[in-house]
């Protein structure tokens, strides 16, 4: 069974890395997340599987795809076609994988009682009793991230002014050497 998963992962992973169309890459990312969801289920965590499915496949990837489309050009871009030092990176990644796997092999976890079937209620109880402040902290983090996202993407008037001035400057520079440019 592991070979099946390994094969799936490798297939979609290679796809994610090598597809020249970024949309295909994003789709293989979705496929990998689905594989991960299956792994969640196998680890007795159906709630997380569902949550991941909703959050990743449902929300995150859609937004990513949206932005991807927004920035998409009609023809393939060179930066999507060419990879950045693929061979060296593969060596590094392979090395890390080898090290991690041999580390995992050497690890022997004492088998305790398997979590028979994790009830969402138990998780909820944990989250809202002992780990209440952790969850609140995560909420605060979301607030800051929201502010950050709004502020970063916002274009202020001074920004557009600066951009305009820059444009004028580059035009002027471009025009200077040979008068009838543009």
């Amino acid at each position, binding site marked *: 069974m592991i070979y099946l998963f390994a094969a799936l992962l490798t297939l979609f992973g290679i796809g994610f890395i090598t597809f020249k169309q970024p949309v295909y890459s994003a789709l293989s990312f979705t496929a990998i997340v689905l594989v991960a969801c299956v792994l969640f289920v196998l680890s007795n965590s159906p709630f997380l599987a569902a949550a991941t499915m909703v959050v990743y496949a449902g929300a995150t990837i859609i937004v990513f795809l949206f932005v991807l489309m927004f920035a998409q050009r009609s023809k393939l871009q060179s930066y999507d076609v060419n990879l*950045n*030092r693929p061979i*060296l*990176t593969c060596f*590094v*990644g392979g*090395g*890390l994988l080898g*090290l*991690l796997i*041999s*580390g995992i092999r050497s690890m022997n976890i004492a088998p305790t009682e398997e979590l028979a079937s994790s009830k969402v209620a138990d998780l909820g109880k944990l989250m809202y009793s002992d780990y209440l402040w952790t969850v609140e902290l995560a909420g605060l983090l979301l607030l800051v991230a929201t502010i950050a996202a709004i502020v970063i993407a916002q274009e202020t008037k001074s920004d557009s002014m600066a951009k305009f001035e820059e444009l004028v400057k580059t035009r002027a520079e471009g025009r200077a050497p040979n008068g009838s440019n543009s």
Partner: protein
Amino acid sequence: MSNLVWLIPVAPLLAMLVGVVLCFSSRGRESAHLPTWVGLLVAAVVCLMTLLGSEGGTTAVVTPGYTWLSVGSVTIPISARLDGVGLVQLTVVTCISFLVAVYAQGYMKGDPGYPRFFAVLSAFVFSMVMLVISSNLLVLYAFWEGVGLCSYLLIGFWYQRPSAANAAMKAFLVNRLADTAFLAGILLLWHGVGKVTTSTTAFARLDFDTIFNVLPALASEYPNLLSWVGFLLLVGAIGKSAQFPFHVWLPDAMEGPTPVSALIHAATMVTAGVYLLARMSPLLSYTPEVLQLAGWLGAITAVIGGSVALFQDDLKRVLAYSTVSQLGLLFIAFGAGMNPEMLPFAVVAAMFHLLTHAFFKALLFLTAGNVMHAMGDVIDMRKFSGLKSVLPATHILFLIGALALAGVPPLAGFWSKESIFGLLAAQIKDPQHGSLFLTWLCMGLFSSLLTATYTFRAYMRTFQGEVKTPAEAGDHPHEATPVMLAPLYMLAAGSVVSGLVIYLTGWLDKFTLPPETVEAPHGSWLLFVVSMVIVVAGYGLARVFPTFDEKKSPAFVKALANRLYLDELFYYLLVAPTQSLANLVGAIDKFVDSLIRGVAHVPTAAGFQLRRMQSGIVSSYALTMAVGIVLLVALAFL
């Protein structure tokens, strides 16, 4: 009393802080002397009260003060350790400093760096007080450097003048040379104490009490180490106290303002070396060979200083060389303490002369300052004469100082010199070193002959003869202001009476001698007579002493006028090699520099790789990070 002790350093410290603030403020600059006055006055009064109220005796009172650092097992407490010697030194420092500060108000008036001067002056007094009262050798060293720093700042006070900046640099470098030896000595001692005792913490090993407690053990187990320590401490002491061959910095230090010359380079700081030897005298009693070296250096310095002073035309320089030679006498005193049972008397004699010398040398310098003030900053004795009628008060004060310095009874200098010579004379019959003591005695007496000669000569050239003033002095040179004269009267009073009082009452003995010692050896009446003859001879010589012309004088006169070419020797022995070394290093530096530049132009070279990694592309940075992670993880399998 114990709490009051901390007032002595804290008052100048506060004065310094206020002064530093005044340096940066636009208002209140003209009254910058006030905090310093108050701080120093408080310190001086506390000192005097403590001194007069003290029972005497040599036992040291350790007052815990302030725990500087207390982290984990490291504690660095700073505590005050006050014994008789320290108390005497402290009183001299604070009282003279206060008087000089009063004088400086008049002298420095109108200088753009007025607040700076008083801030550094307070800082100097603070460091000096801490140097004296610190109970730990390392703390002493720290403030030793602090004192050196203040001296550097004050010599170079008029830093716009190249000569002042150079003189400051020179004093700094020469002192640094000696201080390196001092520091090495401290570390060696620390190492040694650590070998014989394990009970104390690392820092407490350098407490004086600890050191003195383990001295017998140290002396029996590591006598060689002790000699080395003594030698290295001596080098430190002769650096600060301007003894041969490190005396070259002191005359140049006269570039500083005159109050500074009086305070730091005549009365207080230069005696720090002597104080160090007195403080470490329990250790030195185990190392007679070091004391012998001190005696020799002192004798040589006394003679050299005296002879060079004879041929100087610059009044302040005469006094500077005179200081060098008088400090030499102090070191002779330590030489006379070669026999361990005589060492306490040597300390007494040295402290005695130190005290009187502080009075009359400060007086002389400050009166010279008056002269300089009146003459429009001209201090060359060839340019003026006969100032007796122009500056009557200054004339009398200078005369008192000169008589005290020359050793005319019953003024102070006579008695303190006498106690040193008496100590030497009493030991002439010593079977082992008798001839040595005799030699030093002769050299000491010869230097006092020189002292009398140059002092009277300087006095006569300045104040006697026809009235002549330089053009810089303006139409009618005037006497100094009362605020400048008042402290001089007090110094003059000290110069007159201190010697006689202390000699007759044996007042110093009670502070510096263990209670059950035998009667101190005093000079015989023969020595008295010899001394007086010497003074008279000196006066006679001064009368007949011709003024030399540089061109047609014999070689030795030329040599003396040029300070025996010692500066040149120093130059060729130390500076020139250093400079060529520096040039070499510079050349290497340039080579390396060009190599680096070359490397930058050759992308294949190894050093360039780092730069190339810094390409600005995120992916490359991430790749490097990933490689780093792999390497870190791979360390697990090693």
